[in-house]
């Protein structure tokens, strides 16, 4: 039969409807239905460093987490505030350089440099992006893409912060367990933190700015202010990732403004499903290891990478997480028209 005489009907599962309210707490089955997916994710992430075989792949886990933080910040800005930001590399670079300078020049330990780099880096990124906040959609994307490129050239041309050589000899994490568990816990913290935030009242204002900024203005709120707050939150996450990166590799250089940091989080969001926050994290856990596996193919891996992305965009454009949520919450059946 073709779609001409039948169509797919989707219905919420009874358990989904029942567990929407507070009554879910009254039965183990419904409690399990709510908690299980989250528990699997949390436990899976926390067990990952224990089951991964080699040191090389443990380093990959840290890498994945840094990209996951960036993807979270991209997804939050793009799908909850309406700012499509290609400034991931700006966040990474700013956070990395601040952490490196604090550590190298002032001799601060990394327990101080990471939070300081996140907050001050976020302040700097927000100030830099402030003039572009009235822009929307693709226009904001273009301008935010310019920033990391400009920063790279400025550092190169003025020969500041170590110029093209970068800053070396930065303190590393005490050991690889601390490193991995720190970044993993940060990913979980910001994943669930952002999911909570977008459903708070201030989160609704962010979503209002995305949905309909004129109505927010008519309600007596400055949209530029709320966009700036959102950019601060997102860039703090990005700068945190940058600061961790510089301590993991014990190096900070202009390569940290590379466009990979802007592009890969977007690809991960496409694969994982935009607007779900958990999706982009899952997307990173798929994309970054694939890119490592394909490393031996040399430059050909870009081609494989492109094929995977294209396949996702053509066949599953909604993203894995949206697809998974639908299968989990709804059942489908064919009905005759």
């Amino acid at each position, binding site marked *: 039969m073709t779609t001409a005489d039948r169509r797919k009907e989707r219905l919420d599962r009874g358990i989904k409807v029942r567990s929407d309210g507070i009554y879910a707490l009254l039965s183990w089955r419904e409690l399990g239905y709510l908690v299980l997916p989250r528990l699997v994710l949390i436990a899976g992430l926390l067990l990952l460093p224990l089951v991964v075989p080699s040191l090389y792949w443990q380093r990959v886990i840290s890498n994945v987490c840094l990209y996951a933080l960036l993807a979270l910040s991209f997804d939050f800005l793009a799908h909850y505030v309406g700012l499509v930001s290609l400034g991931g590399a700006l966040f990474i670079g700013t956070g990395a350089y601040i952490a490196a300078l604090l550590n190298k020049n002032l001799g601060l330990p990394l327990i101080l440099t990471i939070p300081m780099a996140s907050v001050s880096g976020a302040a700097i990124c927000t100030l830099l992006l402030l003039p572009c906040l009235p822009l929307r959609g693709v226009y904001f994307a273009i301008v935010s893409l310019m920033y990391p490129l400009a920063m790279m050239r400025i550092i190169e041309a003025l020969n500041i912060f170590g110029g093209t050589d970068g800053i070396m000899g930065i303190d590393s994490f005490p050991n690889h367990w601390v490193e991995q568990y720190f970044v993993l816990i940060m990913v979980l913290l910001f994943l669930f933190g952002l999911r909570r935030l977008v459903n708070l*009242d*201030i989160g*609704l*204002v962010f*979503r*209002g700015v995305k*949905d*309909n900024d*004129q*109505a*927010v*203005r*008519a*309600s*007596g*709120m*400055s*949209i530029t202010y709320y966009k700036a707050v959102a950019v601060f939150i997102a860039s703090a996450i990005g700068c945190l990732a940058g600061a961790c990166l510089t301590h993991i590799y014990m190096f900070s250089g202009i390569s940290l403004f590379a466009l990979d940091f802007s592009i890969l989080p977007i690809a991960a969001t496409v694969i994982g499903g935009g607007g779900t926050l958990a999706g982009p994290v899952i997307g990173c856990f798929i994309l970054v290891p694939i890119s490592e596996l394909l490393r031996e193919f040399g430059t050909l891996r870009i081609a494989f990478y492109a094929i995977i992305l294209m396949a996702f965009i053509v066949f599953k454009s909604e993203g894995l997480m949206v697809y998974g949520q639908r299968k989990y919450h709804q059942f489908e059946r064919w009905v005759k028209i």
Partner: protein
Amino acid sequence: MSESPMLHVEEATKVFGGILALNRVTFDVHQGEILGIIGPNGSGKTTLINCITGFVRMTSGKVFFKGRDITGKPAHKIADLGVTRTFQIMRPYYTLPAYKNLVIPLFSPRAKRTGGWRGGGKLGDRDTVGIDILEEIGFERDSFVPYKLASSLPTGYLKRLELARCLALKPEIILCDEVFSGLSMSEIASMVPLIERLQMDGITLIMIEHRLRELFRVASRVMVLNFGEKLLEGRPEEVMADERVKTAYFGSEEVEEVMTYA
């Protein structure tokens, strides 16, 4: 009407490129009054509201709210003073349920100041205040309507939601841009008492309207715009009787129909 007017607009002029959208429009609105603004399409009614509320910058002219100059202030500052507006093309937050739509205005600085417990009423919960406002404006509380996504609501409810968004700010004056348009006769019939109640609550209203019959029932004064100029201003029956209005605006049959109704 001896005290200083609520809103005083002086020689409002707006030029879009070479088009004179508003040409030196001057008028007053007093406390507790309902001023109707009518005029043919493209006569500058919506532009006038946009200019007053700061969504569009006036070319020249002044706006005073309670004797205070608000010309050229940003839109959110003007709304913060209590000068609120609805949009002709409804602008709800489509991805949110109806009552969550009101959480956003309730989060604004003005609602936090005026609404008690930072906009959340006695319980400090903006959701319940939102549902209360929706009930006041005609959403049935115990039905599922307030909980539905704004994207699935019919026009009548969306128009009410526009008004509700203004009410959440505890406004002094609401500028309504065609709240009756696109509604069925029965929906309009249920909206009219709502407007009357807003007036009884002491809210001043400016209403742009094409539904003359309903407008003339509620409005205390009517101003007629034509090609961006103020044609005349007066009580509804005076405006109806004026020859210039008839030729500029109405089909003669409609005037007769309205007159017999009045």
